[in-house]
């Protein structure tokens, strides 16, 4: 399947979804005016990837700031990964956050408590 790479802007994060190299990463700032418009391609890519995933999927998130609508879309991404995990595939979500950013750590903890999928908190 085709890889998806979106370069970051001041309002949107960097996205690398590369099934060939096993790199799944969303990082940076996510405050798009139209979150679903921006993440539609990401959600569609994950849906397509879920049909034939790698033996192990490690999805890295490293966001410095995101708006409320982005947090909803992130939850949709997590739900998709959760479904992949429940379907018997090995999935790990790694939530990277700046070590001094307590809010981002708490956000990760909330997501972790909500989801039934391996969810690692990684302070950097």
């Amino acid at each position: 399947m085709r890889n998806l790479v979106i370069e970051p802007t001041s309002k949107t994060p960097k996205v690398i979804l590369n099934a060939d190299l096993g790199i799944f990463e969303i990082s940076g700032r996510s405050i798009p005016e139209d979150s679903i418009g921006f993440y539609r391609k990401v959600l569609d890519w994950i849906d397509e990837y879920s049909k034939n995933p790698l033996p192990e999927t490690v999805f890295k998130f490293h966001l410095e700031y995101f708006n409320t609508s982005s947090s909803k879309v992130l939850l949709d991404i997590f739900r998709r990964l959760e479904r992949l995990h429940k379907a018997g595939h090995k999935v790990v979500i790694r939530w990277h956050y700046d070590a001094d950013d307590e809010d981002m750590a708490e956000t990760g903890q909330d997501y972790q408590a909500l989801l039934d999928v391996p969810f690692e908190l990684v302070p950097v």
Partner: protein
Amino acid sequence: METEGRRKIDEFAEESRILENARLTLAKIDLTPDQWRQHYEQLVEAYANLLESARVLTRNSDRLQRKLDEANRKLEMQNKLLEKEAEEALLKSESVLQLNKRLAEEKMRLDTRINRVQMALFVLIAVLTVVILFMLYYLIFDPERAMRLMQEIRK
């Protein structure tokens, strides 16, 4: 408004779909009790997910608001600090300008005095030169008269 409304529906597309399915199910009249139960279970599960999501999103939103408030507070503080520093810099520049003005005036006064002294020295040197030239003239061409003049000066 229409765009905003459509955007909201898009972000909750999955939830909207579940609600629409539930409404369609409700309109059906030929379902067996087991089928009703199955639909109801699905609806309960979806509702539980939605409730948990709402909790997480609310907490996220509160954290974002707190972050924004904190950023605004810092910005206001920095603005006040900048305004204060700008005022101080303005006062300093005004005092520097005044000092420069005073120094310029003082320089002008000194220049005038120096010019006067220079002029006086020039006149003095000119007079002395004339006297010396006269003396030399008399010493060379009329030594007797020169001696007489010297004796008169001594008297």
